[in-house]
């Protein structure tokens, strides 16, 4: 390997390190809210598919997640990537065994280092996801989700009040997941999802999607 190749490899490595800041629709959540007095933390490894030029590209996207029980029927939490943070709440609307239905509004901000047709460095997302759990047995739970997210994507000049090249997108999406309860405090969740971004100016954009695994650990708060 020549010095040039080594430098190129370093450059590519840096790009891959930063690239997980890409927007991801992955939430890796079930409908059951975190009990009051419990905090859950999780590690997710997602693979995301997104529009790159005129092709689809795929990248790994690690995330840290957390939830904290806040009330009998609601919790709050978020997910953290290298270059983004999303915070939100989750509200349990229906609990009728084996079904649970929740809605989870969220808001987030991301920096995306790779620009594309409707992708810009500065991103704000606001929206909500409806989650439906169906418990097969005490160990296995299926989760379906439907979401609608609005995204503002703009160049860094938005901080100077210049909005040339900015985009507004609406992204309906859906997800399907399965959770395996490994122990009372440990859950492994696999999830996949799709989003169909609609650029309010340029129209429909190609599908974006993800698949991922999340290991989530819950702990009752010390009294």
């Amino acid at each position, binding site marked *: 390997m020549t010095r040039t190749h080594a430098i190129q490899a370093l450059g590519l490595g840096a*790009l891959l390190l930063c690239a997980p800041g890409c927007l991801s629709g992955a939430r890796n959540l079930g409908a059951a809210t975190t009990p009051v007095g419990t905090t859950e933390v999780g590690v997710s490894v997602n693979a995301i598919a997104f529009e790159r030029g005129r092709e689809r590209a795929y990248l790994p996207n690690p995330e840290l997640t957390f939830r904290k029980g806040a009330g009998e029927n609601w919790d709050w939490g978020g997910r953290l990537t290298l270059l983004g943070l999303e915070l939100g709440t989750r509200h349990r609307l229906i609990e009728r065994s084996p079904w649970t239905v929740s809605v989870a509004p969220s808001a987030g901000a991301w920096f995306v280092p790779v620009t*594309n047709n409707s992708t810009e460095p500065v991103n704000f997302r606001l929206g909500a996801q409806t989650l439906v759990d169906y418990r097969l047995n005490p160990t296995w739970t299926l989760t379906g989700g439907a979401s609608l997210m609005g995204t503002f994507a703009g160049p860094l*000049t938005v901080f100077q009040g210049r909005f040339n090249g900015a985009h507004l997108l609406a992204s309906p999406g859906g997800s399907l997941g399965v959770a395996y309860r490994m122990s009372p405090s440990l859950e492994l969740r696999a999830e996949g999802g799709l989003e169909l971004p609609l650029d309010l100016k340029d129209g429909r954009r190609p599908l974006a999607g993800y698949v991922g695994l999340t290991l989530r650990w819950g702990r009752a708060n010390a009294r």
Partner: protein
Amino acid sequence: MGGYPDETGPRYSGDHRAPVADSAVDPASLTVVTFNLAFAENVPEAITALSSAPLAEADVILMQEMDAPAVERIATELGMAYVYYPASVAKDGDDFGNAVLSRWPITADAKINLPHDDPYHQQHRIAVAATLDIRGTPVQVVSVHGATPIVGLGARLEQAETVLHAVEGAAPSQVIAGDFNTSDPGSLTQTVQLFTEGGFQWASEGVGDTADSIIGGLPLDSVFTRGLTPVERGVDMRPAGSDHHPVWVRFAWPP
């Protein structure tokens, strides 16, 4: 920084070919060079490079990041005809645009405005097309300067597509060359695919990196052709006054 979106100008042209020009005899081949001279700040060094082999054999030099005085000086020193259109004004206040220099008469030319101005610098980019009369055979050449990766790959592909549409069917033999800013992963592949789908051959295929950067060499510059057969190609890695290196392709003649 301002731009020049007017399709008609500003326009600069000149003809510094010798009275009894090389164009009096049939060429044995046609050599095209593309060269981004980095804001035209090192013109003497560029002239030195362009005056020695293999670049001295160039019939056509397609240049980017040029201003009018630099184009005039290079054309005068090398004894070539030229046409130049500025696209925008650079940070130093000088114009910033594309030029076509030719040892053969330029019979027609046009400025092609590219979409997707750089939102950070309000920098407009263009391509410049010129039709050359090579002993009665028309050849269209196009000097392209695509946007930097900051506007995204999708935008740069739309810029390339704009050029393809603008020159479609304009001449039986065409060369489109320039700085396509294909530095990011996958961008060169998708650019080549776009030109291939448009009926063009990647004439500079295999020349390797064409520009220096802090992360190493980058393949920013390319030459595409339709109706001509490339027989030899390369990158002149000698210092030429720019972070880009001149890329040259020798085509068989007659086509």
